[in-house]
């Protein structure tokens, strides 16, 4: 029992990722060993090009590491078949993108319901659950609106609803506030912290946004593909 509680949400060992750029091979991640705990909001910060997006992509099962092990809730995800991995993501992971990537021709509630619909749930039920999630994010009144009728902050809240609606155990966000002004960015992050983080759910956020650092349970700093800081606050020199 106590073993299970201690099981990390994500466990990586010796993760290396190389990219081919023409003739050259560039090593973007140099052997990352990392445990991410359930129930925590983890920030991944670092300069542009340091490998944050690469790292988070590998952790959520959309980018194969060149070498190393990645376990998500005890599953060695890169030993799964393609279809198994896709279904693993569908059941266990919520995604929040910088550009929201909502479907423009369906309303907010339907957008938020997409993971449930993809899981095979009926449209009505999925929508009803999505509306509930929108309520938690304080935008249920926008449920019938199309994405282009919403502000950026509202769209990102719909995207958060989509990331949480199927109760995933892991939520990953790459620069969720980058396209928002400071105020709406802050609100979105407060909501994500409030609604998204739960005892059995980890949230990992890649961000540059130093105005929201205070929300994190843990901050990891990535420099040139290596983790150089791991703590509850930002290091002094940043």
């Amino acid at each position, binding site marked *: 029992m106590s073993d299970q509680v201690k099981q990390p949400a994500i466990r990586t060992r010796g993760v290396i990722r190389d990219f081919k750029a023409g003739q050259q091979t560039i090593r973007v991640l140099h052997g990352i060993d990392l445990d991410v705990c359930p129930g925590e909001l983890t920030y991944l910060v670092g300069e542009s090009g340091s490998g944050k997006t690469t790292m988070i992509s590998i952790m959520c099962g959309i980018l194969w590491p060149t070498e190393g092990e990645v376990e998500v809730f005890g599953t060695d995800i890169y030993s799964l078949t393609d279809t198994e991995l896709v279904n693993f*993501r569908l059941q266990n992971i919520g995604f929040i993108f910088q550009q929201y990537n909502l479907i423009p021709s369906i309303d907010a509630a339907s957008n938020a319901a997409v993971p449930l619909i993809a899981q095979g749930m009926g449209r009505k039920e999925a929508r009803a659950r999505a509306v509930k999630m929108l309520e938690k994010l304080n935008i249920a009144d926008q449920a019938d609106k199309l994405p282009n009728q919403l502000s950026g902050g509202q769209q990102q809240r719909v995207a958060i609803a989509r990331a949480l609606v199927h109760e995933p155990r892991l939520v990953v966000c*790459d620069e969720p506030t980058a396209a928002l002004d400071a105020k709406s960015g802050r609100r979105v992050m407060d909501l994500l912290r409030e609604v998204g983080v739960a005892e059995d759910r980890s949230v990992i956020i890649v961000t540059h946004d130093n105005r929201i650092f205070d929300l994190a349970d843990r901050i990891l700093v990535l420099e040139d593909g290596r983790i150089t800081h791991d703590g509850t606050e930002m290091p002094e020199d940043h």
Partner: protein
Amino acid sequence: MIWIAIRMLTGDKQKFYGLLFGIAFSTLLITQQLTIFVNLIERGASGVYNVPTADVWVMDEVSRTTDVNLPMPSTALDRVRGVPGVEWAVPHLRANASVRTNEGDLEGVSVIGVDDATLIGLPKVMLEGDPNVLSQPSSVIIDDVGTTRFFPEGESPIGARLELNDQRAVIRGIADAIPSFTSQVTLYTKYSQALNYVPGTRNRLSFVLVGASDTVSADELTDRIEAQTGLRARTRDEFAQDGVDFIIENTGIPLNFGITVLLGFIVGVAIVGLTFSLFIRDNIKQFGALKAIGVTNAKIRRMVAAQAGLVGIIGYGFGIIGTVIFIWGFSADPTFKGFYIPWQIPIISLAAVFIILALTGWIALRNVLKTEPAAVFR
């Protein structure tokens, strides 16, 4: 997910209508052109279809169609009548002549001389008058194309006089006939009368029309007639096909229509291909997000197939309706008289639509399938 796919497409009105237009346009062009083509070349057999009672057509060895024939000596009739299995055999004359109308215009016409006694050789249905009017002197029966050609609308041709090869002819009836390939005006008259109208040499008998007795098939009878008389004999169906083949072989029509149909197909591929690819490209981020969230490639394939299917069904429907309206709208025009859409043609255009969508959908889909889910974070 299918629902989402459909909404993605219909939500993008411009591209949705563009796709519908592409498919509808292709369908219309292919269906309409093939329909006109088939109906037009079938006109090559109109001379045969207009005499449905004849089971077998007998002609000189070198004759090829109802219009391309070498007359035979009149003794041929008796030789044919002597063949066992011939129930009846009647003379049939087909020749060209010129007519001077009341307005003074000169027009080429076909003169068809039908058997004096039985009137076999006349079209089955008369629009006005009775076949027996031919027993009156200088009588001719005109076909309905001729009516619209020679006479202004509303003016009855009955009783009108024509100068047919410098001889007097009086129109006493109108026959409901399938127009010839050239839509040339046709005048029917008795065989004996036709001999007067059409000057000629000793040999004047264009065809002998034969009815087979019940005991023999038309096929068998043609063999017998050929063996016994040395003349050429063709069953009704064979001779109709000869007329169609003649047009196919001797005109640029198949090539011209073929090119138009091909253009319809290519334009369809171009419009639909471009629009479909644009649509997919505009939505590539959304597709990428779906893939990251956990939609399998198989499901994505089904989504795009549903989008293509929707465009196909609606666009094809519009195209077919367009063709029907076209054919229907022109049905009063004698040039398009009796035009129908053979059932094979909508199936051919459906197949073309299917190929267009399968091809363009596949090309568009490749971009989605190639997109790595990791691309969504870029």
